[in-house]
């Protein structure tokens, strides 16, 4: 199953701010280029975009979880 990896080390966020819904929920369809989360690196935020499309995304990483570069953020089925 294709995986979406974090290109950077930092903190993973599922939504654009704490009072907003997540970009994607488990089970959602994704298109190439859809934003699936943010990585905060040294106080700057970087959008993470899907590089593959699918009908069923499964997150492997929780909101606000620290990640290393190369960590699996989600799998796309």
């Amino acid at each position, binding site marked *: 199953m294709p995986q979406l990896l974090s290109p*950077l*080390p930092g*903190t993973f966020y599922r939504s654009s701010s704490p009072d907003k819904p997540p970009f994607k929920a488990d089970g959602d369809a994704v298109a190439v280029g859809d934003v699936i989360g943010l990585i*905060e*690196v040294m*106080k*700057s935020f970087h959008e993470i975009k899907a590089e593959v499309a699918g009908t069923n995304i499964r997150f492997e990483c929780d909101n606000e979880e*620290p990640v290393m570069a190369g960590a699996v953020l989600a799998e796309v089925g």
Partner: protein
Amino acid sequence: MLKKLLVANRGEIAVRILRAAKDLGIATVAVYSDADRDSLHVQIADEAVHIGPPAAKKSYLNVAVILRAADEVGADAVHPGYGFLAENADFADACAAAGLAFVGPSGDAIRTMGDKVSARSAAHAAGVPVVPGSLGRVADIEAGRHVLIDTGFPVMIKAAAGGGGRGIRIANDLPEFEAAFPQAAAEALAAFGDGGLYMEKVIGKARHIEVQVLGDGSDAVHCFERECSLQRRRQKVWEEAPSQALSDQLREELCSSAVRLARAVGYSGAGTVEYLYDDAADRFYFIEMNTRIQVEHPVTEMITGVDLVAEGLRIAGGEPLRLKQRDIVMRGHAIEVRLNAEDPARDFAPFPGTVTDLRVPGGPGVRFESMLYAGYTVPPFYDSLLAKLVVHAETREAAILRLVRALKETRIDGLKTTKPLFLALADDPAVQAGAVHTRWLEGWLETHAARLVPDLEP
């Protein structure tokens, strides 16, 4: 004198404060998150307490956990450093309520200076020139039209509850003002839950000049000014003292106005009163007060010989100000540059990673404030400041030469840093002439940034 100090911070400022405390014979306690187990501040403190996961709000911003750590180790004082809890009035109050000396001003002084409108009123009441505009909140658009008599155009309409550049609108003429005022009020209400507005004249090309003060709650002195006009996105990158722009007479007026304000609010500890200086009009205007030690404090220490962090610790321990104004004299010129883990050629993208090798500059008039060591991994969770390189020399010209020499000695292998930016700035005729203002650097970067390629040693 304080007996045991907990430093509620990390990185280079935690190292700086721990060193100052040790120099005074005070026992020291570091705190650290999961991401900072291997940090220098943990290694040099007498004790260290783990305070939680990497996310700052769960560790360095967690008041309950920090107060519990202070209680567990039997600390009698807490130093907040800068950032994190440094300008949190409730934290200062909570320390006092727990019987801990907070190294800094009272919660009330932080509150007064933290609110833009009350700070502006306090400055005006102390006879400190403020940017022409409303003295407090502007009741309605009719009151706003009266304020225009003082400000002229362009004018800024700002949310009283805003900050960090948010909630600001600029009107260039009366029709724009008439349209923007109600929009700004509605936006402020929606964004901040407070529709209060105030107004200020837009100062065009201005320098950022700030005055270092020390207070003991009743008396206050100044340690002269710093100029920090070289900024990118409102972040200072290069700071120096003294400012080339001030005459002796204007320096005296500026510095004594800061002392009046510090006395008026019963300021305690080290603080900074920030101003805009309008070269064309030869006038300065109060913008805000930072109620904490600042990143660029070593610049002032280099020209005055005063250890600002140590003085802050003495004051927090209950000593009155040791220094009289006549004891504080400035000598020579100092420059600080901020070496950040950022790639200046790629829009200053952050670059965390491992320091594979390190060469620290030295020799006369060179100071390197940092938490780096060879093998240290810079975590991605906090700010990008790696080191402050501070140089001091007899003249500004000699200080720039020394800066270039020290930068060329410096190697931080494994990371991209802002070093190429400072080598290029030191070589720039406008910087050499001191002919800059707060928006100068952003314009310069548009044509120069692509050439600022860092060497990335293996």
